[in-house]
């Protein structure tokens, strides 16, 4: 019974941070969140939960509400010492409001913070803010913004319009090299690659090259031996460029 009460109390206290973290790891970078298990997630969220509650308690007390720290500590460390739960049951609606408001505000701020980090490329500038999805950075060309990969300031991910990939794969026919335009990819929940989608791929077996007629060609990752990625910048040549080819 005591363990259940302590677990419930910990989960309630940490839950605003877990939901806020979930909002931070959404969309293209959601795999950073999903590959962790619940226990890992609770541990990752403890520091954030402490921070959120500290700020929210100051705000709530500023509005004249009193937090009963005594009963909180007893709930967490020694539930047997609680003689009377009256303080909790009398203020149950206030407690619910506290948790709902904190979760809501933290989630909105976390989502906006995520968008700011991504929009201003802060995840590529500062390793502290970087997501665990290395494959995402590689396949999109965002690695060009990361100093560890590229110190060349003349090129960035904004220049990349197209990715051409050479894939060495092992099949029943032997080792085959596929070359194609990388149009999509799917990352696995454990942060690896599930498959790559190519358009108009060609396959090379030995010295023979053949274009595969397909709308989209899917290569499952488990058959891939290695990958060669090329980032391309393409522009349509305008009439003025043709007239002044030296420019």
């Amino acid at each position, binding site marked *: 019974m005591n363990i259940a009460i302590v677990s419930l109390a910990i989960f309630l206290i940490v839950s605003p941070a877990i939901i806020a973290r979930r909002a931070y790891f*959404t*969309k*293209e970078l959601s795999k950073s969140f999903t590959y962790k298990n619940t226990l890992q997630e609770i541990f990752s969220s403890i520091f954030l939960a402490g921070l959120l509650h500290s700020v929210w308690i100051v705000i709530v007390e500023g509005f004249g509400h009193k937090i009963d720290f005594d009963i909180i500590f007893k709930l967490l460390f020694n539930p047997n010492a609680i003689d009377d739960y009256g303080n909790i049951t009398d203020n149950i609606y206030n407690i619910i409001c506290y948790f709902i408001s904190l979760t809501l505000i933290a989630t909105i701020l976390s*989502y*906006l913070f*995520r*968008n*700011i980090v*991504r*929009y201003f490329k802060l995840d590529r500038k500062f390793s502290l803010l970087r997501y665990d999805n290395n494959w995402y950075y590689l*396949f*999109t*060309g*965002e690695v*060009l913004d990361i100093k560890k*990969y*590229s*110190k*060349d300031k*003349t*090129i960035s*991910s904004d*220049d*990349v*319009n*197209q*990715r*051409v990939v050479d894939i060495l794969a092992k099949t029943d026919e032997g080792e085959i090299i596929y*070359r*194609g*335009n*990388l*149009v*999509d*990819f799917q990352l696995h929940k454990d942060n690896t690659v599930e498959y790559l989608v190519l*358009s*108009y791929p*060609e396959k090379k077996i030995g010295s023979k090259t053949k*274009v595969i007629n397909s709308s989209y060609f899917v290569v499952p990752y488990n058959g891939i031996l290695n990958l060669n990625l*090329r*980032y*391309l*910048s*393409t*522009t*349509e*040549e305008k009439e003025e*460029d*043709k007239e002044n080819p030296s420019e």
Partner: protein
Amino acid sequence: MSWKVKNSVLYKVIIGNTRTKQVSGASKRIVVSKDLSKKVYSKIDNSDNFTVKGENGKVYKVRQLVPAK
């Protein structure tokens, strides 16, 4: 919605459409063309800068982005 609103920083921060597009610009036409794709594949090993010409006469400049060491 107007182009100005869609491209404002505030709109992008609120909506959060921050995924880098896999294919954009002139490449949208290259990746849907078998002919252009083949031409790109054949030239990509030999040069970092080259052009490919489509059946409609349009010319596309292609540059490989290789970070300077």
